[in-house]
């Protein structure tokens, strides 16, 4: 079954049955620290904690986490370099503290990314989306997002299979053909998505759909111990960053 590595990890992680609210608090706190605290030692601590928790108690596969953490690096490196290069009438140069500024940017970003990745690899989207209701997001929007989550895997699979079928018949053997085939591919996926929505309308009408896609929320109880440890840990990171020069 094709899927996305992060999503697979979320469904089988050891922290799957923890309350999404608990995990949001922890990861939200970590991201906040990564952003607000100075890169040293704040971001470094956040990064270590996030990676440590992911590979340790949450039992996220190292390969998945490692790959995903590297994905934003291209943007971050280019962005950081662009920020610290200085242009003037005389040409290019380096801004003062270029190295430390760039390192700082890198640190904030990698740490923040790791913190969010901890959330993403331990909490499936279908657990997170209902949590949005608590942020006053309307039910209709949450339901639409849930359908997006269900359908995107179906369409991704179609994308891969159709492209493979096109490649087998040499549809991508030259640049021109590849473009034409890609256009056809996009059209095929769009047609599939419309078709699927239309068929689901009838299928769900038969199951009594009238005003919405209401489902029974899953019971994922919160853990006082988890919350307490998280808050303590976050406080520790803040304290360390404030105290260490």
């Amino acid at each position, binding site marked *: 079954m094709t899927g996305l590595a992060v999503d697979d990890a979320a*469904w089988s992680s050891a922290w799957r049955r923890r309350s999404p609210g608990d995990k949001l608090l922890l990861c939200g706190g970590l991201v906040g620290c990564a952003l607000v605290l100075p890169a040293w030692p704040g971001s470094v601590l956040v990064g270590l904690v996030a990676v440590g928790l992911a590979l340790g108690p949450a039992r996220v596969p190292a390969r998945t986490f490692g790959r995903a953490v590297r994905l934003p690096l291209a943007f971050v490196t280019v962005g950081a370099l662009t920020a610290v290069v200085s242009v003037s009438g005389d040409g290019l140069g380096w801004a003062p503290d270029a190295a430390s500024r760039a390192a700082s940017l890198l640190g904030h970003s990698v740490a923040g990314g790791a913190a969010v990745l901890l959330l993403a690899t331990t909490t*499936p989207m279908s657990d997170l989306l209902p949590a949005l209701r608590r942020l006053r997001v309307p039910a209709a929007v949450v339901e639409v997002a849930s359908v997006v989550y*269900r359908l995107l895997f179906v369409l991704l699979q179609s994308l891969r299979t159709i492209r493979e079928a096109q490649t087998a018949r040499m549809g991508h053997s030259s640049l021109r053909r590849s473009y034409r085939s890609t256009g056809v591919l996009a059209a095929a996926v769009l047609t599939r998505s419309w078709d699927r929505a239309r068929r689901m309308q009838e299928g*769900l009408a*038969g*199951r*009594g759909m*009238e005003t919405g896609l209401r489902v029974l929320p*899953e019971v994922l109880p919160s853990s006082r111990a988890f919350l307490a440890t998280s808050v303590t840990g976050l406080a520790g990171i803040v304290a360390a960053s404030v105290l260490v020069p």
Partner: protein
Amino acid sequence: MSHRHLTAEALVAGYERGRPVLDGASLTVPAGRRLAVLGANGSGKTTLLRCLSGALRPAAGTVALDGVPLEHSRRGLRAHRQEVQLVLQDPDDQLFSASVAQDVSFGPLNLGLPEDDVRARVAEALALLAVDSLAARPTHQLSFGERKRVAIAGAVAMRPCVLLLDEPTAGLDPSAVAETLAALARLQEHDSTVVMSTHDVDLALRWADEVAVVVDRAVVQGEPQDVLGDDGLLVRARLERPWTLTVGARLRDLGLLTGPSLPRDAAGLLAALPEHPGVLS
């Protein structure tokens, strides 16, 4: 749940390029029993099931539950759906949630049941279809056969009196077919009527109590061995003769089979053969 009689009378429905797929089709669904609806692809099996479930409004003719005609009003359809549920051939047409348990809860919630009842029904449906172990997995990770059973669970959770299944075994390998049939058997301990459409004549012969063949835009209904032994009908319907009837008939001509009627499956055939060579009638 008490038995309810579902009938269709003189249906005209399913227009394709100007002509109706069904024209004068009538059917009586035997309460509490197993009915197989047979026909070639495109013959109108799905159209018939959709008319029976209320999903499709026929151009003429009536569908009735216990003699009361189905009204295609909001109220009428809602009442009908509580008794008659249709599981479509493609499970992805009915599975909208990434979570298996949440998807199955959709139907009971739409019936307006309180949360505890819904939870109980979901657990019961998942167990009946033997998909309770999948409740923690997302829908998109399940195999085709597993998704088919989750879709059936979604319908079963509404506790309909009549369960209609459109080609429930299409695309399934032999072990998955066996699991599905076992699940349907468990269901029928709870007194429901099961109707399945298929083009697999051997399956129909061994599973069904009654058989209805969709042919020439209408329906011919009867006992499995009668209907499926009628060669003229099978040719018109573009179906094959079940092998047990063919081989059984020949063995009976050779005087080798005991028993009043021809066997309906391999086990029955082997059982009706003599134990040792040399024993002939």
